[in-house]
């Protein structure tokens, strides 16, 4: 104001002038803060509340988890002497148990090798620009057999009984097998439910609704204790195999419903056009309907995968040592008796990372595959 009255108005030459900077409050961080944090009275109140909330939570949490925490201690007692925060010492001493369960120590290279192969296969399958992708895909087909041979043994390798499996390795085995098998089974069930043949249709409906109506825990209990009643006398089934079957059946019922949603979203004209071209049922499904239906149901499919993966923790109820089972065993150990928070949080971090990655990949896939009908 002062300046304006004292000085004569500036004279402008004709011609181009350099751009003036935008007003102070409409750019940069200030603008961002104004728009995102302080745009209206409600917004200001929310911001204040959120800042207060974070102020209450973050410092305490950070000092408990990192600053005051003990990372290198042989027992909880030692932890107490070293720091007032969390006690992460068990990770250093027990990570092998958490990873491999009771898998024989001298055979663990097989698990590592199988895992590396798995990572390799995943990279080949999910990364489109991978060199030699076409040839390498053949390897992916062989992978399940190689992995089975490596982990279970036989044919020259020392065989390891499945009750020695445990920890993250067990979660991965249940999760990956379940995911790989439940998708095709789910597709078949969904097609069966849409079928024109009443008996097949009602059998599929009955199966799907039964599985969806009962908790997985009861199915696992049936698998672990009662299944043998329903098998011919003296037929034995490995417990892990039974669990895998149950988990797969369970997930496939949910998968079927997700895919049914996708099938219903494919316009009827598509099937009719396929019929008109003389395609047989399976041809039209494989070439026309399923590709569209699966594309639509990707988010649902991945959600079911994540659900299955998380549900694998329920196997502790029937006495298998998944990471949660190992966590409980750790808490029963003389050295680590006490509050369970750290141990469970450690397991939670593992699940969070793997599930979060799956969810993010699904988002990416969804964006990549969607062919532009989105508004």
């Amino acid at each position, binding site marked *: 104001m002062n300046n304006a009255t004292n000085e004569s108005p500036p004279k402008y030459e004709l011609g181009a002038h350099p751009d003036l900077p935008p007003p102070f409050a409409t750019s940069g961080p200030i603008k961002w803060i104004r728009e995102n944090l302080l745009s209206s009275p409600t917004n200001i109140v929310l911001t204040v509340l959120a800042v207060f909330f974070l102020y209450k939570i973050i410092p305490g949490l950070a000092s408990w988890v990192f600053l005051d925490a003990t990372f290198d201690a042989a027992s909880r007692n030692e932890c107490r002497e070293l720091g007032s925060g969390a006690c992460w010492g068990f990770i250093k001493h027990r990570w092998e148990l958490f990873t491999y369960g009771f898998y024989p120590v001298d055979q663990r290279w097989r698990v590592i090798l199988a895992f590396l192969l798995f990572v390799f296969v995943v990279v080949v399958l999910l990364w489109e620009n991978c060199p030699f992708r076409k040839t390498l895909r053949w390897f992916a087909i062989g992978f399940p057999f190689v992995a089975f041979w490596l982990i279970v043994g036989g044919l020259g390798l020392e065989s390891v009984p499945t*009750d020695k499996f445990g920890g993250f390795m067990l979660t991965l085995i249940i999760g990956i097998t379940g995911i790989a098998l439940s998708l095709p089974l789910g597709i078949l069930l969904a097609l069966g439910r849409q079928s024109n043949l009443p008996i097949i249709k009602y059998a599929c409906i009955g199966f799907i609704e039964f599985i969806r109506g009962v908790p997985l825990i009861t199915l696992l209990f049936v698998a672990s*204790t009662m*299944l*043998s009643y329903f098998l011919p006398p*003296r037929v034995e*089934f490995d417990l892990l195999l039974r669990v895998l079957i149950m988990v797969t059946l369970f997930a496939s019922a949910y998968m079927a419903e997700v895919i049914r949603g996708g099938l219903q979203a494919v316009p009827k004209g598509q099937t009719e056009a396929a019929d008109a071209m003389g395609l047989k049922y399976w041809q039209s499904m494989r070439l026309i309907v399923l590709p569209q239906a699966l594309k639509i149901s990707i988010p649902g499919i991945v959600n079911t995968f994540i659900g299955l993966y998380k549900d694998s923790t329920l196997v502790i109820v029937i006495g298998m040592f998944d990471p949660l089972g190992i966590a*409980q065993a750790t808490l029963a150990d003389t050295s680590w008796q006490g509050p369970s928070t750290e141990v469970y949080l450690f397991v939670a971090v593992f699940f969070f990372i793997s599930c979060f990655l799956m969810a993010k990949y699904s988002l990416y896939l969804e964006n990549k595959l969607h062919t532009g009908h989105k508004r």
Partner: protein
Amino acid sequence: MKNTLKNAAAVVALSATAFGAQAGTLEDVKARGELNCVVTTGVAGFGAPDDSGKWAGFDVDFCRAVAAAVLGDGEKVNFVPTTGKTRFTVLNSGEGDILFRNTTETMSRDADLKMTFLPVNYYDGQGFMIPSALGVTSAKDLDGASICIQTGTTTELNLADYFRTNGISYEPVPVETNAEAQTNYLGGRCDVFTTDASGLASTRASFEKPGEHIILPEIISKEPLGGAVRHGDDQWADIGKWVVNAIIAAEELGVTQDNIEEMGKAAGDNPSVNRLLGTEGDFGSMIGLDAKWAYRAIAAGGNYGEIFDRNIGPDTAIGLERGLNAQWKDGGILYAAPIR
């Protein structure tokens, strides 16, 4: 998978001919080359995997003895860990061949659940453990306490009966496994932990400060713990029964892991020892085994006293006294039926 199917088909054909008969556990075990022994998921001293995953404990040694008698090698055991809930179904469904899992012999388990119990290998009773700081000296003073119990065990029923007959109240806190019971007890969720006295001792031994907990003097039940097999296969039940008897008798007769080789070489002066170790008579063939069955069973883990001392005796962390479990000659009630 294919193999399983093939087996299934074969067995269906087989079972069609021998309808309903459940005999043949011995043949199954021999054919498999491995004994499926039902054990606990982990009670220190009685049966728990060590750091390397190898099973050890009092009950585990009995499993090994049976495996040694039948298969000739005490290491050929596949341990099937079970919770209190799943143990009988696992045995009944044929997934396990024999059970050694701190299991109390009761009439309903015998008759209704179709178990054949082997001779008692540990006489136990249910007790209470409580932090000594609470100053309680008798179970009668536990009115209103929260009590941790393992579900699916006889202790749950005894507890309800005991408090009911004494007219005192309590809050039951059911837990699935011993590990959870410990966490809850140490976390203060319950004042008292109850289970078999041996289990209490073993649990207390695993505490950081065992001295801060006392076991109350009341023993509120009789818990004869023993192994079990399914009903319907008498030969297999006999094998289990006589392996346990042989191990108990070995202590009475002074046969130990150290001197067994010497004593088993040739018939000695004591006919009882000779019959036990197969240097005289052929008792093994009566139960479908060879003459050296008991020799191998004892050689695998020693006699009763050795198994006891190694796993749960006074010198171990568990620190149990023999008490009722001493030989009848020493004032206990262990009394093996004679092998003759």
